[in-house]
């Protein structure tokens, strides 16, 4: 029956992938800190290369594949162990085309973030341990196929985020507030998802065998056969509601209850993805986080939301997605416009108010919201009714690509902003000017990252955005057209930012700043190189994602 999980008989690669960083984290935390934690720094860096190696190996040997007439993607390198017998929860991992690019991104970003944290002076061993812990959590989310397991990693990812922000962030008072908001906000959001899955469990339990298996739940939702449980997920939910007597009180249909559950899960994921209007935690968190943490959180952590939409929402609630696509498109559009507009204003209006408003990192954060809006738009389009199979698959491909590219470019931008602040001690846009003259290479690299971010053709960002718009056009034409505006505004925002920092009269205080250092090179080089490589030749990544995307989409069409 479990043909969709291709179990590895031999090496548990995925477990290794997940737990190697955890081991590293423990080692880093418990070993004594030598001279400014050099041992830990190099050690964790070296160790973080191992998951990268494994990820590359997995990518290279990944074969894909589908069953059930192509409607069910096969998870490769699967592992399945009995875990919680009473609740029938399993330790179940698997890799598919959607998770593989994100796994690659995570394992890639981690060593880079570690490199970026070489200049952390306060208790570097804990800092590094938290970075590695975060990697574990994120990989776990991408690879888990059982809801409880998934949820554990999902929530655990908050812990390192919280401590990184609250203990190593910028201004003492604001960073605490930001961390607090980040944590409570996302945690409160998850409650709905938890309740929803508990409900699925209860419903399937009433139908024979309770399950937390994500794949089984998606199969049930698709009407694919699952051992021991009869019927369609929506019907099971409705039947259970009837059994409880809720239907007598509230009335409604299967669709109604599935809609409620959909809503609960959507809120959880939207908070994580920072979709308007659930985005308010994000600018605070990003802006206050220390640079390496910003890189990881912006680069990977928020992608968990989009990933979960692809993994949970699309397959489990096809009907609801279809109905809500337009509204979701609206949310996406609002994210795009609001993100871009706020960013633009930050760049445009100098001295507007003392404090946070004209802050480089806030600007980049709002642009993140904007970019995640595209991903959201793509997902909404993939769920929409109109449009043929391929267009929707293209939208998903675009989303995956966008996530990957945005992860690279935004973390490059954050890193550059951090380096800048390190030199000048300020994130204020107005504190700079004419830096191009003083640090030309720095300016050039910032330019590349910036253009990749705003989606200049030839850079990876473009590929993602192109596929997204290509995919969303038929289904959500209105929002696609309106969202194009966002492209313009965000481009303006970035360009203005570039101008304020690098052009104009040279700020005398900045004279004599060093140009880019070797360490900064080592961080930026892989990021920018990959942005260019995938901008020019996105095929390997696309191929991986495509097959899964098609399978996901086939669910909807029932083909």
């Amino acid at each position, binding site marked *: 029956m479990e043909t969709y999980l291709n179990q590895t008989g031999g090496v548990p690669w995925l477990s290794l992938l997940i737990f190697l960083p955890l081991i590293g984290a423990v080692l880093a935390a418990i070993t004594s800190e030598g001279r400014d934690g050099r041992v830990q720094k190099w050690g964790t860096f070296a160790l973080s290369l191992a998951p990268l190696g494994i990820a590359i190996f997995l990518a290279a040997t990944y074969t894909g594949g589908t069953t059930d007439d192509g409607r069910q993607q096969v998870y490769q390198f699967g592992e399945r162990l009995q875990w919680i017998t*009473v609740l029938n929860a399993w330790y179940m991992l698997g890799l598919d085309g959607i998770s593989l690019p994100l796994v690659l991104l995570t394992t890639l970003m981690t060593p880079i973030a570690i490199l970026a944290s070489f200049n952390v002076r306060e208790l570097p061993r804990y800092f590094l341990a938290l970075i590695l812990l975060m990697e574990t959590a994120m990989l776990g989310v991408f690879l888990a196929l059982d809801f409880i397991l998934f949820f554990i990693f999902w929530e655990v990812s908050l812990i390192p985020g919280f401590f990184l922000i609250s203990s190593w962030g910028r201004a003492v008072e604001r960073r605490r507030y930001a961390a607090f908001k980040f944590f*409570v906000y996302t945690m*409160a959001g998850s409650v709905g998802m938890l309740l929803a899955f508990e409900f699925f469990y209860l419903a399937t339990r009433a139908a024979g065998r309770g399950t937390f298996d994500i794949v089984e739940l998606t199969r049930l939702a698709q009407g694919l056969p699952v051992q021991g449980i009869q019927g369609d997920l929506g019907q099971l939910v409705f039947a259970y509601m009837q059994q409880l007597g809720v239907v007598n009180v509230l009335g409604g249909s299967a669709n109604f209850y599935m809609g409620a559950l959909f809503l609960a899960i959507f809120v959880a994921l939207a908070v994580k993805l920072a979709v308007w209007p659930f985005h308010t935690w994000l600018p605070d968190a990003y802006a206050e986080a220390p640079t390496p943490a910003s890189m990881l959180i912006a680069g990977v952590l928020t992608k968990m939301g989009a990933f979960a939409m692809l993994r949970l929402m699309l397959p489990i609630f096809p009907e609801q997605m279809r109905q809500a696509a337009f509204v979701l498109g609206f949310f996406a559009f609002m994210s795009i416009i609001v993100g871009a507009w706020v960013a633009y204003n930050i760049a445009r209006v100098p001295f507007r108010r003392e404090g946070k408003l004209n802050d480089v990192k806030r600007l980049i954060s709002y642009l993140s919201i904007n970019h995640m809006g595209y991903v959201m738009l793509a997902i909404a389009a993939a769920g929409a009714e109109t449009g043929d199979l391929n267009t929707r698959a293209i939208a998903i491909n675009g989303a995956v690509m966008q996530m990957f590219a945005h992860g690279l470019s935004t973390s490059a931008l954050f890193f550059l902003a951090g380096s800048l602040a390190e030199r000048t001690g300020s994130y204020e846009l107005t504190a700079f000017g004419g830096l191009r003259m003083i640090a030309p290479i720095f300016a050039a690299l910032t330019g590349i990252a910036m253009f990749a971010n705003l989606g200049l053709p030839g850079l990876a960002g473009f590929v993602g955005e192109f596929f997204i718009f290509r995919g969303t056009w038929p289904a959500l034409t209105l929002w696609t057209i309106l969202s194009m505006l966002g492209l313009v505004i965000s481009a303006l925002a970035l360009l203005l930012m570039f101008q304020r920092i690098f052009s104009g009269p040279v700020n005398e205080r900045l004279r004599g700043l060093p140009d880019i250092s070797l360490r900064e090179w080592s961080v930026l080089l892989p990021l920018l190189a990959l942005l260019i490589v995938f901008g020019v030749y996105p095929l390997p990544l696309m191929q991986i994602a495509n097959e899964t995307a098609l399978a996901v989409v086939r669910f909807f069409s029932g083909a």
Partner: protein
Amino acid sequence: MNLIPAGMLPNLPYLTFIWGVMLLGAIIIAFLPASAKNAIRWTSTVVSFISLVLSLLVYLAYDPNGPTFQFVEQANWVPAFGISYFLGADGISIAMLVLNGFVIFTGSLISWNIENRTKEYFVLLLILVVGVYGVFVSLDLFLFFVFYELAVLPMYLLIGIWGSTRKEYGAMKLTLYLMVGSAFIIVGMLAVYFGSGLRTFNMIDLANFRPGFTARFQYAFFMPMFVGFAILAGMFPFHTWSPTGHVAAPTAVSMLHAGVLMKLGAFGCLRAAIWLMPEGAQMWAPVIITLTLLNVVYGAYIAMAQRDFKYVIGYSSVSHMGLVVMGLAALNSISINGAVLQMVAHGVMTALFFAVVGRMIYDRTHTRQLPELGGLAQVFPFAAFLFIIGGLSSMGMPGTAGFYAEFNIFMGVWARFPLVAILAGIAIPITAAYILRVIRQVFFGEVRNPHFWELPKLTWQEKTSGVILATLVILLGIFPDLIHPMIDSSVAPVVQRLDAARQTLATVGNPVLGEFPGLEVQGGQ
């Protein structure tokens, strides 16, 4: 777990040994000279360790597929009144035994710094534990009650003598509240004794006799019994003793109290009230669950407003124990499982909390006011680490024991009182908020007081107990299978009775509130 197959263990009265060894310890200490403080401490630690090992042994040898109650010991005590010395353990008791074993062992270690009247302290502590162990394994209601009282009373002296901050008030309030509870319990016991016509306190007989208690009887006497125990579990509105008591109590006592003693209440609710009077439970469930909802949300909310470190933890206990009772009151298999799991989880994590707050922080800094603390993570990184682990469990972070338990409770409550589950969900972010606030104020930021740097380092006893408890928090969160199947197998018969009672009640009708459609749903087992 049944890792030790039947027949491998010699047939001995293990359950008696478990509490007996503690009593023996108390007696030995009573005969040691008061000046031999280290000998006293070691004695206490060693006997606690022996009892821990014994309870682990029982845990390993328990066969979930065997009869519900194993390791049964039965002897006449007062046959004229149907009172017997009747011990037996099911999965729930064993989970509690092991929990208690760990908490008292670590509590012994944590009490190492008691210099004032060491001997009396340990004697009382061990007597208290005798009572706690006894309750968990008693199958005779009278014996149950005797042990119960034995566990409650030493608290008075322990808090009153070795406590801090309005200790006499706290001790008195606690004792009187719990005694009010006992009064209810006595009424319930007598009712059961005469109501059954059996003239016996044997709980198994009382549970299984035919035709069983009438619905009217259960309607009248379920509540006294339940509330009597629930007071100890800190049920709203009888919870106010708990924060004051916790604040006043010395560390190890807080650990034991919040960690184990409050569970006695919940355990009693399950064993004496729900098990014996399932129909009564079904009738009163909506009322109880509404009260516990207040517990959970109000407790969390009040915890948020506290400035005293221990008060935060105290109110958080109220909130978490509210979840336990809520799980019990939802009366289905998942929720009761969850309640038992939460007892264990909360026991471990709250013991950890108090070990950190009371022993590692308060005993050194002599202040528990949040604004006066700060930056302690730099001074005591290990304490901060432990507290964070506990805090994560408390806020229900997945991967910790607290999450798994709450997960079950919410799922169970969801299946029967969806509205309550949703409303109680509010407490989750509130909990996260106050725990994070405490972590931030106490452990992070600038070191508020330079004299903190001169405080003594953590001792090995503190570290050991901290590590043990923190490990348990994580271990139980990641491998709930360690205890869950065992608990599940023992909850099943209770739930069977409850379901049957629900069937009966459907024909009789619920005299309490009639049908309560908004709150309770019909299905959901």
